[in-house]
């Protein structure tokens, strides 16, 4: 009886948490397919009587018909949101690829290779996570101005790597640590050199961990807002976050901003759904 009560409580709490988390996103989705004219009449309507994609079409830089049939002009000067999404994807992909090239061998070496200062190295890496990334904005800003990296994708990728690499090294470290050392030993006995054992056996065997690392790297870069705002706002390399935040000032209609928000949610959402089985394996406590 007690366990039944406990189960009911847990399920109710989980359902409440789910609604709490999902409802704002669902609401934004509904608002994004509602004409502003209709939205202005009733803010609390759950389903629009005239669903429309006009907010999306205008957000992507084309005119579209309003509720009364009149043509409404595109939002902003050019497809800012689309350009922002493209920039975000490029920066996130580059950060992920370069981050993985650095983090995977580092995590493997920390987990496997006997070395001095291993513990202090690990502590140093995790310590960088305790420093608010924005606290490094001033030195980066001064450096980037001197190196002409402000407003470049490369500049943002470099900053993102300082956040992503320590995070993914820790995730990778725990994955490699849990991989039985006998796998590499077996590969050596089978005729592989150390490098070949890493490439042919360890990497494929650690694929779930590597996928989780890559997804975390991508999402971290995608979600990063502060540096993107400082280094890309108003430049052709402006990413999705600053582009959307600019919309709040450029347009004041929530339906249009909601459409931009949904467009920006799509890539990470698709990624999270496709790779959810790998993300589930991440031990967030260790992260």
């Amino acid at each position, binding site marked *: 009886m007690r366990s039944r009560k406990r189960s009911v409580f847990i399920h109710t709490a989980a359902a409440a948490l789910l609604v709490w988390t999902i409802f704002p996103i669902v609401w934004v989705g509904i608002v994004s397919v509602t004409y502003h004219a209709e939205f202005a009449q009733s803010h609390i309507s759950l389903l629009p009587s005239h669903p429309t994609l006009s907010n999306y079409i205008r957000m992507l830089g084309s005119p579209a018909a309003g509720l009364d049939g009149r043509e409404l002009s595109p939002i902003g000067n050019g497809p800012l949101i689309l350009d922002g999404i493209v920039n975000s994807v490029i920066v996130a992909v580059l950060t992920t690829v370069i981050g993985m090239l650095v983090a995977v061998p580092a995590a493997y070496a920390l987990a496997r290779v006997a070395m001095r200062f291993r513990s202090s190295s690990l502590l140093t890496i995790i310590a960088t996570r305790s420093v608010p990334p924005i606290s490094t904005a001033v030195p980066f800003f001064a450096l980037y101005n001197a190196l002409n990296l402000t407003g470049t994708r490369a500049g943002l990728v470099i900053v993102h790597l300082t956040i992503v690499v320590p995070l993914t090294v820790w995730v990778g470290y725990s994955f490699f640590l849990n991989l039985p050392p*006998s*796998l590499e030993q*077996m590969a050596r*006995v*089978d*005729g*592989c*050199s150390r490098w070949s054992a890493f490439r042919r056996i360890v990497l494929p*065997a650690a694929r779930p961990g590597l996928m989780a690392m890559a997804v975390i790297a991508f999402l971290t870069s995608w979600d990063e807002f502060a540096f993107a705002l400082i280094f890309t706002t108003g430049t052709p390399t402006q990413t999705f976050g600053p582009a959307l935040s600019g919309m709040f000032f450029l347009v004041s209609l929530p339906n249009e901003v909601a459409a931009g928000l949904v467009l920006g949610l799509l890539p990470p959402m698709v990624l999270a759904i496709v790779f959810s089985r790998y993300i589930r394996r991440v031990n967030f406590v260790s992260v």
Partner: protein
Amino acid sequence: MITGTKQVGVRIEAAVKSFGRGQRAVDSLDLDIRPGELLTVLGPSGSGKSTVLSLLAGLAEVDSGRIWFGDQDVTALPPEARKIGVVFQSAVLYPHLSLRESISFAPKLAGVPRDEINARIAEVAAFLQISHLLDRRPHEVSGGERQRAAIAKALVSRPTLLLMDEPFSALDAQLRRALRSQVVRLHREFGATTVFVTHDQEEALGMGDRVAVMRGGRLEQVAPPLELYRNPVNTWVANFVSLQPLNLLPVEYDAQAGEVKLCGETVRLAGPDRPLPATFTLGIRSENLRLRPSADGPLQVLTAEAVGEQVKYTVVAPDGTNVVALGGADQVFEPDAKVALAVDWPRAMVFDTETGARIVEGITV
């Protein structure tokens, strides 16, 4: 024997291996393994037996000493250059590959033609009864099937030396027994020189052509199973290889009368030829000790436990010494019964009380 298997002798000379803060896992080890032999290495945890295997595999390097495969010095050779097969304690198969791909990995890497690989896999898989599992992934088969696939993997590249590190320790007793006999038949069939590490006495004595007993990084004794069982070099080996409890009883010897006092009884000895010290330790396995009814018997039954068709008795001598003896189900003694000992004297072992070393072989009365 399957064609293509080379038999090689292995020699370990004065090998030393330390880990951590100078703790010697293997200490001045000399060991000769004969070509085609199945040598079992027996020892408790921490005895260095798995380290010996790692040294032979090249997965660990000796601090000093040399290792020879035939007349080739392999001391400095990495594992990939040693042409060995290893079966680890936890069946190691690559999780991202099917059993067939895992098994064929090494010969493929060595450039063995595909047809040849397929023929070898078919042969080994048929022997180990895993032919129907070859296209499955490791997580899709049972622990025993995984271990058999791991053995197939070790054999398929025709290793000159097959190393097995407690391969059955994670399996249940019934499966372990089945696989044990399969490995012995497999060794006979494939003929590769094999080193089988185990902490299980029954496994070591049942499988090995010879058994090497290790303790604290040192080799205590190497001998064929029966010889090891009957003629252990010291009390530690005698005790460790005993399948049934070993009694180590303090004995006083009257050289003039040629008599020993054992658990309150006086026994006249006819042998051995060599003189015995005034006091020594008599080693008698419980299966070489019977109880006989005796109204005024000096010993008293404390407990009686059924062990299959036999009964294990613990009896107490007048001096307080506990003795364990095995008895048949035909004559059962109740607790508190008065009994006397019937010793199988030729099987009794005489050890030096101080050093524990074996002094003489067998005694006659």
